[in-house]
């Protein structure tokens, strides 16, 4: 029996794969551990470890030029690294899909995470990226499906924000 409450990371991975994603780009992050590990172990996809999140914006555009679909997995702090690079998606009308694990959010104990955590949605929206929050396990898969449709069906730039109400806060 699959539990939607605890197995949502695996369900999210399956949803992304079913959505035709073949390139998983990431900067290591605890909130994305299952997605990252599964993409590394999966011979059907390419797992791309980035040195900085903005590389992922370019990678997604390059994949699109070749007819492939990619996703960028990053923490909220990485969103700030992407700002100017998002010009590429906006100007070139490239699809853009990211799954963001939030920090500086509900229950955060590390003060360094708050500035970018609070600016995540503002920053993405300022660059034309649609943001959808996920607070509950039952909403992970439907939101991911909607985001895949928006990005790769309708050519939009979309971010799924996995909030700390969903993923919990790291203890300090």
């Amino acid at each position, binding site marked *: 029996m699959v539990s939607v409450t605890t197995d949502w990371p695996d369900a999210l991975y399956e949803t992304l794969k079913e959505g035709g994603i073949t*390139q998983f780009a990431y900067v290591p992050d605890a909130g994305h551990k299952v997605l990252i590990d599964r993409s590394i172990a999966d011979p059907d996809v390419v797992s791309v470890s980035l040195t900085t999140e*903005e*590389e992922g914006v*370019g990678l997604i555009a*390059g994949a699109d*030029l070749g007819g492939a679909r990619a996703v960028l997995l990053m923490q909220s702090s990485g969103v700030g690294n992407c700002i*100017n690079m998002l010009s590429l998606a906006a*100007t*070139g009308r490239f699809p853009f899909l990211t799954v963001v694990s939030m920090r500086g959010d509900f229950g955060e104990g590390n003060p360094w995470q708050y500035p970018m955590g609070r600016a995540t949605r503002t920053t993405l929206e300022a660059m034309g990226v649609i943001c959808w929050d996920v607070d509950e396990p039952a909403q992970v898969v439907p939101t991911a499906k909607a985001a895949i449709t928006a990005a790769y069906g309708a050519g939009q730039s979309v971010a799924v924000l996995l909030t700390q109400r969903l993923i919990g806060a790291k203890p300090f």
Partner: protein
Amino acid sequence: MNERVLRRADAVPPVLGDHEDFLIIAGLGSPCRDVAAVNGAAPNAYPLSGAMGAATPIGLGLALARPDRRVLVLTGEGELLMSVGALATVGVLDPGNLSILCVDNGHYGETGYQKSHTSRGVDLELMARGAGIRRTLTVAGEDTLKAGHDLIRETEHASFVLLRVDASEPAPARFDLNAAANRLRFREALLG
């Protein structure tokens, strides 16, 4: 070695050779004109006039998507320095169908020819090698143009060629600044 004897407009065409060997990502600035002068702004190249630092990651995504095609990132040293970590990402994955041709004139041509870091002791071929890219070469004279031409066609490993040129203007050429139109043209030509 630090002398810049090759004239830009003369040095890029023989290294690039037959542009139809590649899908090309042209980095911000003069590289877009370097490419357009050779391929007549054909849709096998995607030119960037913004998103500085994007050329190498775009080339990587394209190379991973299309292992059946050779992908060339043709960019300048200023653009490359903005995302030098991307060299490490390329080095780790080592896609044999991806090559980077960095046209290094030691200056930021778009903004008034201010000196770049490579005029001040930075060696991007060494950085590429340090990033794990196994096939690298500096082309600084006519005697190595052919070797550069051949190395960007290497198929076993990702490769990096630093083409050291003077700070003269690129060959005159025009290309479309409309990034969305260029995307559609590129995809239409490649994907049908």
